[in-house]
């Protein structure tokens, strides 16, 4: 039995469903009932109900793409800030494709403090000293050498992507590379550095005005205007 309706706003402690139902997201089971752990929205999917939190620091999930900053070089890997409650860990074995002799090669030759990486979350295990483990051994990830990073609230990331990717597709009309990190960091790179500044301001606008109706259309017209002004 469900105690919620689609798109309902719920709060910590609110009852969602009886234990026989499938409920995902930040919930807990108390006396045979699922209750919410957060301020969130109820989404009904095919065979389950999902609670989508509306606030909070980034909670990594396996498979997430994140944009991180290297904050420390350790004995066998790097510590990476991914805007979560703990720094993430990138082990050497997950960073390099070939074998390296750590006795003769300093790790700083590959990544150093201050470097920016696009990485995938390999594993999340709260009992580990580093609960979040990253990997670079995937497609379209690695050290970032140029471009710029825009920080927004992680919960606003769905708005930047938009329904079925509409907003992101609109932004891509500028012809720039965009990687949306689930941790609220967006890496952008354009051929013209002025475009980067414009795109960054657009993304911040989406964050600030995300409640405005028809935002996608407004962003579209801003891009048109910008393109016109450049041609002059």
């Amino acid at each position, binding site marked *: 039995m469900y105690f919620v309706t689609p*798109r309902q706003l719920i709060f*910590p402690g609110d009852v969602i469903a009886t234990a026989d139902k499938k409920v995902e997201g930040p919930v807990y089971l108390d006396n045979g009932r699922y209750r919410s*752990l957060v301020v969130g*929205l109820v989404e009904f999917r095919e065979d389950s109900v999902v609670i989508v939190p509306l606030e909070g620091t980034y909670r990594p999930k396996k498979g997430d793409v994140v944009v991180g900053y290297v904050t420390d070089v350790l004995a066998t890997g790097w510590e990476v800030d991914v805007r979560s409650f703990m720094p993430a860990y990138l082990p050497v074995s997950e960073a390099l494709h070939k074998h390296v002799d750590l006795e003769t090669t300093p790790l700083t030759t590959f990544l150093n403090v201050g470097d920016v990486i696009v990485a995938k979350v390999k594993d999340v295990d709260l009992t580990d000293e580093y609960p979040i483990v990253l990997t670079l051994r995937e497609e379209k990830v690695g050290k970032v050498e140029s471009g710029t990073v825009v920080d927004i609230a992680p919960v606003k990331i769905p708005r930047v992507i938009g329904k079925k990717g509409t907003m992101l597709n609109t932004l891509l009309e500028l012809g720039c590379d965009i990687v949306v990190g689930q941790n609220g960091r967006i890496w952008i790179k354009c051929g013209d550095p002025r475009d980067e500044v414009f795109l960054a301001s657009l993304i911040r606008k989406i964050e600030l005005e995300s409640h*405005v109706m028809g935002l996608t259309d407004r962003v579209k017209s801003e891009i048109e205007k910008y393109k016109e002004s450049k041609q002059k």
Partner: protein
Amino acid sequence: MKKPPVPLLQNGVRADGRLPDQMREVKISVGVVSNADGSAMVSYGATTAVAAVYGPREMHPRHLSLPDRGVMRVRYHMAPFSTKDERKSPTPSRREIEISKVLREALEPAVLLEQYPRSRIDVFIEIIQADGSTRVASLTAASLALADAGIYMRDLVVGVSVGLVDGVVVLDLNGLEDNYGEGDLPVGYMPNLKRFVLLQLDGAWKREVFLQALNLAVKGAEYVYQIARDALKNKYMSIAEEIYGR
């Protein structure tokens, strides 16, 4: 018993015009400190508390972190200008240290600290203006600020005080009733789970009075809880709309 400057209760009406089971005007707003991860301002009448939450974030120094759960730090503090009479020294008093502790222990049963190993959650509460019931207003503000920060909680925690005035159990003591009444019972309550997480008594009450006071506290907490929900709705309804449209 000290004699109050005005009668505390006359024909069943309190000095400020309230009935015994009536709260003062409750005002709650969420998200009042933009830099904080979560924040809330709560007023019970002239008592105003502002809570700001930072975290979960990395624990410094790191050796103070716990491997299996997060650490919570709670500070209750009164502004030097918040009291009626003399300036309150900004140095934390023994009272403030005790209240910081009982508030932390009232919030910890609600927060899933085991979800945040090796990190910390900071809860800062400042009393801007004091007119009785400051610690319970603080508790409501702190729990809303935690929810606003998106920290995993089993339930919200609502604080209310109950006192005894001329032998009558009353809800939400103001400063006058706190000073001249016959004791007070600050309570922290989880409205969904029906659990008491803060309980202190300072007075000399018979068993029946105590039990009666608990009942009134639950009633008061449920009333404040509805206003707290509305305050959260106020902030989050617009965010809900932006994700799904109207």
